[in-house]
């Protein structure tokens, strides 16, 4: 069983991509220190407008994967992966995953040409925040889990039902909603102020990301693309791959922190990193991080090559989320008592890792998905 040619390719980042990583990395180190993360996670909006504008403007990050024809810069999943990895490392508080990645990909892959021309530019420039509402019951996207009803009326549609765990659902100017019509699953665009929409923030374990429950009560909506033809799986793959790259960035940050501390902390007259009990676990963690990175990078490469990325995407999601959480647990453990405090920063990543484990499907669900895609 071939997973797609992408997995057989040799892969290295180009010099330009490495340079891009450095620029993004430097920007985020500067703009997203944990003092900023802590300040923003306590706000309702959850991000800083000025930093968001710079991120989208100067760095052009929100439109990275969006073609130039729609106001973006026309790079692909690999560059998007780089941007995500750096954001994960810096634990950036921003509507990037929800707006640029999730809603951006949904429109890019599912809307008509006219709609893309109209809707994508403000997302690419960051002047509008969009969100993508799929989940109703499980975090794992599946055809059968979508029950929000869309009924034709006049020239448009009316949506009724409920969506949960909508990333940036509370702040979004525009919501892309997956609903069910007689023809099947379809994408719809809903303006934030539309009659009958009510979004309420859901108290999140990871306060660095804002999620909302959204209720739709006969809400006017515009069909995106063709009825019954929402390319849910393609959107899912693209989103999962970007998300996996974010997670490995977080895992790397935790690994670095764990190792730095193990070298610094002295007990029994020696650095704790000199105990094999710790040293070997650092080595194991590096192995896991490198393997997870490989799945995330390769999945981005597969998508960039235009191949079916289902297997690679689900592998990357499962591997990256398990690696991320494991890195977080180890990092706390190596820190001892201080690792369990609020004051120490490790818990910020731990909570991101813990909620990333179940967001967009658990590792178990993705392992089933990848086997199914392989025909096993």
């Amino acid at each position: 069983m071939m997973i797609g040619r992408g997995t057989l390719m040799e892969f290295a980042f180009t010099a330009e991509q490495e340079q891009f990583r450095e620029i993004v990395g430097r920007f985020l180190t500067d703009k997203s220190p944990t003092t900023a993360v802590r300040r923003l996670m306590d706000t309702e909006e959850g991000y800083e407008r000025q930093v968001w504008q710079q991120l989208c403007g100067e760095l052009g990050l929100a439109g990275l994967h969006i073609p130039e024809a729609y106001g973006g810069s026309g790079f692909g999943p690999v560059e998007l992966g780089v941007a995500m990895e750096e954001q994960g490392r810096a634990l950036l508080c921003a509507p990037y995953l929800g707006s640029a990645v999730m809603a951006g990909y949904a429109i890019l892959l599912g809307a008509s040409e006219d709609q893309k021309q109209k809707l994508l530019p403000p997302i690419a420039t960051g002047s509008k925040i969009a969100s993508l509402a799929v989940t109703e019951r499980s975090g794992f996207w599946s055809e059968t889990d979508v029950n929000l009803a869309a009924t034709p009326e006049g020239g448009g549609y009316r949506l009724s039902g409920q969506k949960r765990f909508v990333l940036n659902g509370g702040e979004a100017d525009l919501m892309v909603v997956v609903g069910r019509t007689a023809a099947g699953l379809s994408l719809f665009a809903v303006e934030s102020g539309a009659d009958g929409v009510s979004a309420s923030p859901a108290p999140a374990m990871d306060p660095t990301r804002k999620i909302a429950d959204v209720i739709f009560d006969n809400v006017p909506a515009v069909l995106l693309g063709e009825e019954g033809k929402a390319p849910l799986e393609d959107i899912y793959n693209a989103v999962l791959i970007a998300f996996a790259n974010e997670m490995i960035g977080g895992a790397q940050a935790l690994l670095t922190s764990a190792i730095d501390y193990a070298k610094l902390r002295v007990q029994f007259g020696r650095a704790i990193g000199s105990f094999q009990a710790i040293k070997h676990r650092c080595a194991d963690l590096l192995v896991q991080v490198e393997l997870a990175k490989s799945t995330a990078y390769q999945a981005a490469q597969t998508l960039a090559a235009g191949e079916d990325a289902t297997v690679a995407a689900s592998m990357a999601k499962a591997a990256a989320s398990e690696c991320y959480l494991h890195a977080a647990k180890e990092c706390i453990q190596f820190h001892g008592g201080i690792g369990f405090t609020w004051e120490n920063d490790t818990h910020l990543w731990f909570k991101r890792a813990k909620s990333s484990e179940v967001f967009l499907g658990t590792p178990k669900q993705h392992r089933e998905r990848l086997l199914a895609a392989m025909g096993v």
Partner: protein
Amino acid sequence: MIMDTDLQSLRQEVKAWLADNWDPQRSLMDWRIKLVESGWGAPDWPEEFYGKNLPPAAVNAIAEEFAAAGAVGSAQSGVRFLASATLLEHGNDDQKRTYLRRILTGEDAWCQLFSEPGSGSDLAGATTRADRKGDHWIINGQKVWNTSAHHADYGLLVARTDWDQPKHKGLTYFIIDMRQPGVEVRQLKQMNGHASFNEVFFTDAKVTDDQLVGTLNDGWQVAVTTLAYERRSFARIRTVTADRHGDGPIYAEYAKEVEIANEPYTWYPQRAGRVDLVVERAQETGAIDDPAIRQEIAKLLTLNQSAQWYGARLREAQKAGTTRGPEGSISKIAASNIARLASDVHTSITDIDAMLTGPQSPRDGIIAEILVSVPAVSIAGGTDEIQRNIISERLLDMPKEPRFDTGPFKDVKRN
């Protein structure tokens, strides 16, 4: 081994005593004094110190009779338990008389002042100093992660009294009065939002000579006793439940006492993983039908059950005197494994709702609290790594790690 017939007559005796004495109209203090004087409040303690010198099986039977009568017991929860166990083993008669009684009555609360910023696992690396001044001791330095210190009247303190000796030989164990000007307690917030542990600062705090436990510079031996009790009973000692209800003012007083005592520990059941909730939760979410999750649940229940059975075997072996001492480390590692697996299983069961927290999240936030509290289990009371060192070196007699800290303490490398 205690015979069944003995237990039967013991139960009769307790019943009769309770029938004559238990009265929910009394004040809690009144009743506790009765308990202390009769020995029924600490039946496994020596007869000369408020006990009846009875074996564990008898203690359980007595506890059951108390429960059946709705009678409130003595105050032995939390660090009070560690303090009394340590004093019973190492305290002198004066200390036992002074402190044990007020532990049982609930008048005094205690905390453990072992860990320091620079010495946690390496407890014997403590740098809080005790200097002799006239007929007493002056304490300077800092402790950290001290659970419940914000409620405590007394602390179990390990401080350095000789800097020229190797580190284990220069420590002394003291009882310190927490209610004095030289002791400052600051609460520390944890990653789960609670603030049950503290930093404790000593600035010329005073300890009297008769508060020295054991012998000068031999505090390490005493500390080891405290730690052994802590490990052995890690899963049990912390919380008490206000499980006594009924008419009478004593129940209200008791509920208040339990509430204060439990305040730092409300999240402890969650940190242990709440195995008790797993099956119910799987049933209520439908996860019980998922074969992969069923496997995880069965594995967790097996692990949990085997740890309980191990605990029972261990208690018998301790009674029979066939243990080597550090077996509590096995229980403690088991507790970590259980908690970690339980956290994973709860996550599988809870699916995406595991992203939520607070009163509107599953089980009033209890599930979320499990997920952010479990990381403490493998750190508190001695880390998993330290337990593994103990198991391998002291139970399996494996070669010891080379040491770099055996010279005079003042020359040992530290943070």
